């Protein structure tokens, strides 16, 4: 019963995060239409994929786990979980592409790009866990956000950095939970989902502050 309550709370957190991701999508699309900057389109697509994955997970988990008590639905829950994990990795790769510093030469960009591709391929070969792959990509995104914050000193860049750090922590804690059943590590599971929500709230604060006159 405690696990059901925990999952309900998790789905609430996930829904709020998904709504914030949609808000970032809307804002990035608007910015892309005005400026024609391709990287803003990538950010928009990244957050759209992320929100689609989140809502897919919420609907899938609600329908098959809460409604039917998880009876006979393990395969579908597995599919939902894998789709969610893949959508998050796709989104983080798009963030990596769009946050990549723009003043590097094409040659350097290609080298960096092939470097990260090999790194990702290596994680597929070494560890098939989607959580580990997400962590690897997010570490690069966090490093890029740190460089961006250090070079601009912008408070808006700081909110994005805090957001991505919290998302990374959320994945690290979730990776620890996946090594043990949720029932045996409910605190860590909730901590992971809480960190994700706080990460998205940091992005929401950035949106609100950037939108002020």
């Amino acid at each position, binding site marked *: 019963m405690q696990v059901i309550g925990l999952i309900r709370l998790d789905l609430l957190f996930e829904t709020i995060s998904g709504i914030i991701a949609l808000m970032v999508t809307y804002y990035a699309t608007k910015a892309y239409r005005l400026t024609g900057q391709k*990287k803003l389109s990538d*950010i928009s697509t990244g957050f759209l994929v992320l929100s689609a994955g989140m809502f897919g997970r919420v609907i899938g988990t609600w329908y098959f786990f809460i409604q039917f008590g998880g009876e006979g639905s393990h395969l579908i829950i597995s599919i939902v979980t894998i789709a969610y994990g893949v959508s998050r990795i796709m989104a983080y790769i798009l963030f990596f592409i*769009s946050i990549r510093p*723009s003043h590097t030469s094409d040659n350097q960009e290609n080298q960096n790009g092939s470097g990260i591709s090999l790194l990702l391929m290596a994680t597929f070969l070494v560890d098939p866990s989607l959580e580990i792959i997400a962590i690897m990509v997010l570490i690069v995104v966090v490093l*890029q956000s740190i460089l961006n914050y*250090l070079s601009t000193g912008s408070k808006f860049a700081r909110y*994005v950095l805090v957001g991505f750090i919290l998302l990374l922590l959320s994945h690290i804690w979730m990776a620890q939970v996946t090594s043990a059943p949720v029932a045996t590590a409910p605190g860590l599971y909730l901590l992971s989902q809480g960190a994700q929500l706080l990460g998205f709230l940091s992005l929401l604060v*950035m949106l609100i502050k*950037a939108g002020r006159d």
Partner: protein
Amino acid sequence: MSRKRAYRSKMRILADMMRAIQSEGEEGVGPTKILYAANLSHDRLKQYIDELVNKELILEEDLDSNNRTYYLTEKGREFLREFIRIERFSEAFGIDI
């Protein structure tokens, strides 16, 4: 540490021109001041000013052929406010616009 800007998009150039006009308030501003503030060549300045006038973002007052003054319209002010919001959003993700 300051980040080198690789290039200025057309939208940024238009926004820089409008900022130069806005900085003078109600008095309006002449083409030379816009040219220096937005760091443009004379040909490109004329081209972009025509575009801003056609889009009703700025107003041209032609006192005589050698004395033109430009003012920001309400539509221009709203555009500039929107551009600043988008500029902050892009800056948050380290994207040059």
